[in-house]
């Protein structure tokens, strides 16, 4: 747990300018130092960042960075309560109108002040069909945005829209406030690689597939933040490599930890392990519009044909829990409470459903997965089990996350292993995946009754009643098995022993927490 090599590592880095990836400590290095100016926060398990435009981001590593570069009107505090961020306060003027009082004197990275015009611009841009934001449907309920003065914003929806407050938080919803003065005439493409926000950090450089460098935003509105001057963010595709980098002193924080290594790391005093149940949902996405997944009996047969607890044990090495549905159990007021029969292993029923299906044993299909870590094993465990129970002949195809997501979007896929982490509202899981017009309904699933319930849930402002509607909708959807919910995984961060100030939230608040890290 000694950190005797700090100084020379730092000076090594200093000589390195912007392009440093993971810097290494020579074994001959010596001397010690307490606090730090450069935090090295590795994004582990991913190395694809296609855009840093909040309106376009979809992948979690993109969100990790966007969270540190931008702010939203609201955010989650350490107890997961919604609290003001760029807004100073907010109130519900009527069931359909929210009024926000903005902080004064908030500066973008280029020194311009953030005003209500920027807020209005942000939401108009998200709602603009031509912009093609993946988050558009979340904000399509908005009918008007009024800016009575520079520091007041009113958001009006046609009907009461319950998820709105969650959608205005600094999470994966894309509602981070962007500068009107830059984007009004500037190009979106340019902004995606040179983002300008109000957040604690500004982007210095981005070496695609390799690393990013952030620098403190001197005019940041929160007193005393960020605590570090520079953040280096190596993109480390292999999670296990992130562990060795941390143990070897080349990085201070990781965004994930390999499930297999967690028990061993918890015993290791060279590292702090933060972990908790994550707001996540991992599932097998079935393309309901192509054979053989266009047959509900075949999908049900699959759902009966594998053991989810075994998946947790084998894929996550126990670091998670079997799912009841796609709404994560940590959103307890909306999640399905009792495990539905269709989400459990039952070989007899599986074969009975297969009997009713127009496809039989020997049916072939390809299950697309990605990466080299547990995602691949996830696919393999699924395929092995259904092949054994049903006698079907499924195979696995491995690709990268960007390609899998693209192929899901284009429908160029039969089945794929997928999941979401860090979405905070049940609407983001249930509506966006189960609803006919859901933004992430890549399954091409459509059930009018489910649609109706999900729409009602959006209008329902009473939390308990709203939760009941989601449960009802999910119960119906599960009968159709458009996706096969599998498990929820824990979120982990590994920290070097001296790092403090990093607060882990169940949605894996990586980039959002870097500002508060003092010692590293």
């Amino acid at each position, binding site marked *: 747990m000694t950190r005797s090599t700090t100084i020379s590592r730092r000076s*090594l*880095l200093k*000589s*390195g*300018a912007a*392009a*440093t*990836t*993971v*810097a*290494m*400590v*020579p*074994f001959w290095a010596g001397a010690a130092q307490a606090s730090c100016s450069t935090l090295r926060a590795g994004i582990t398990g991913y*190395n*694809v960042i*296609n*855009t840093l435009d909040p309106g376009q981001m979809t992948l979690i590593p993109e969100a990790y960075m966007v969270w540190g570069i931008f702010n939203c009107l609201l955010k989650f505090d350490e107890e997961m309560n919604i609290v003001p961020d760029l807004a100073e306060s907010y109130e519900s003027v009527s069931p359909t109108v929210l009024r926000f009082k903005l902080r004064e004197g908030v500066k973008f990275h280029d020194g311009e002040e953030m005003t209500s015009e920027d807020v209005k611009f942000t939401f108009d841009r998200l709602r603009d069909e031509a912009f*093609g934001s993946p988050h558009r449907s979340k904000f399509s309920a908005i009918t008007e945005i009024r800016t009575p003065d520079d520091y007041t914003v009113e958001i009006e929806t046609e009907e009461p829209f319950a998820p709105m407050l969650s959608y205005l938080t600094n999470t994966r919803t894309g509602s981070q406030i962007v500068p009107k003065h830059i984007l009004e005439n500037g190009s979106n*493409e340019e902004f*995606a*690689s040179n983002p300008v926000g109000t957040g604690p950090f500004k982007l210095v450089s981005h*070496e*695609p*597939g*390799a690393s990013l460098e952030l620098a403190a935003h001197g005019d940041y509105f929160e007193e005393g933040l960020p605590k570090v001057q520079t953040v280096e963010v*190596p993109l*480390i*595709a*292999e999670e296990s*490599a*992130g562990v*060795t*980098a941390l143990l*070897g002193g*080349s990085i201070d924080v990781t965004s994930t930890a390999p499930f297999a290594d967690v028990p061993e790391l918890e015993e290791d005093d060279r590292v702090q392990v933060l972990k908790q149940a994550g707001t996540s949902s991992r599932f097998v996405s079935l393309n309901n519009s192509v054979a053989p997944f266009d047959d509900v009996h075949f999908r049900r047969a699959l759902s009966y044909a594998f053991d989810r607890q075994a998946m947790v044990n084998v894929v996550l090495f126990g670091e998670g829990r079997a799912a009841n549905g796609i709404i994560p159990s940590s959103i307890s007021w909306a999640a399905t409470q009792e495990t539905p029969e269709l989400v459990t292993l039952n070989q007899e029923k599986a074969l009975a459903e297969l009997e009713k299906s127009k496809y039989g044993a020997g049916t072939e299909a390809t299950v697309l997965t990605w990466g080299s870590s547990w995602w691949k094993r996830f696919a393999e465990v699924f395929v092995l089990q259904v092949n054994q129970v049903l006698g079907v002949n499924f195979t696995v195809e491995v*690709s*990268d996350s*960007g*390609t899998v997501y*693209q192929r899901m*979007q*284009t429908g*160029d896929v039969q089945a794929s292993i997928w999941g979401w982490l860090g979405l905070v509202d049940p609407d983001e899981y249930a509506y966006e995946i189960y609803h006919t017009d859901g933004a992430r309904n890549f399954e091409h699933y459509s059930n009018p009754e489910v649609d109706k319930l999900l729409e009602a849930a959006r209008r329902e402002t009473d939390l308990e009643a709203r939760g009941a509607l989601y449960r009802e909708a999910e119960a119906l959807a599960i009968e159709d098995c458009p996706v096969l919910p599998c498990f929820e995984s824990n979120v982990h961060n590994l920290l070097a022993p001296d790092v403090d100030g990093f607060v882990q939230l169940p949605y894996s608040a990586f980039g959002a927490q870097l500002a508060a890290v003092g010692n590293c």
Partner: protein
Amino acid sequence: MPSSLKYFLTRLSGSLVTMLVGTIVVFLVMKAAPGDPALIVLGDYATDETVAAFNRKHGLDAPLMAQYLDWLGGLVRFDFGQSLSVSAGENIGDLLLYRLPNTIFVGVYAILIAVTLSLVLGTLAALNRGTTVDTSATSLAVLGVSMPDFWFGYMLILGLSIGLGWFPSYGFTPPSDSLAGAFYSGFLPALAIAAPMAAVFTRTLRTALIENLDREHVMVAKAMGHSGRFRFLHHVFRNSLIPYITVVGLQIRYLLGGVVIIERIFGINGVGSLMVEAAFARDFFVVQACAVVFLGIVLAVNYVVDLICAMLDPRRVR
């Protein structure tokens, strides 16, 4: 024209022709590959109009010949166009420029290790022909070529990184940041790449030295009374160097292949790891750019090796 100059020019034009044909083949194969770049990139937003606009932007609506010439014209200026998916919109030339020095550093480092190891082992084996030293050296050499380099890389990690903690198992400091850091962090990957090469070099050197030790002019030199050491160095070594260097040149082809996986395992941002990522992301433009870069490196190295051999043995030139 002096015959040496003529030789160099002939060889140069030969390499250039191979390079040119290579670019044509790479281009055509990529064109024939399944998958439409426009659909890969546009995905959900692919309509007839957006596809047409995409193709216009990337010059994909021109006739094949024009597309090729356009691409070739770019290559000469180190302009490979834009990445499709691996880092969308990024200039491929910039991606390569950042990564090429890392690949070259690790490659040269590996050759240095392989050459050093083989000079020691090969000479020892040849001078002690038939003894235990010889048997050990040759056995080690066979073992060296039999290990998959990436597996050996992991064994090095297991032993020297996880076990003894001497070296980092992942990550690479670019030589532009710190030369010492690059040598240190690049040691394990370079050693993994070097092992099979060192084995081949050792065998070559041993055979060549043994053959030359038996040669007549060594006998003559002996008769003339040179000291044994001088004789060994001057005649034997010089004559053995040509097959040795030729093999070093030929091995570049395997060396650069090894770089691809090793870069990925050790997290080196090089051209090899870029090519693998582009292959996953079906980024045709980046894959073909990487292929051309590797082609260029191999041809350049082979050319230099030929020049060195010609200088060592002027008879070759004629």
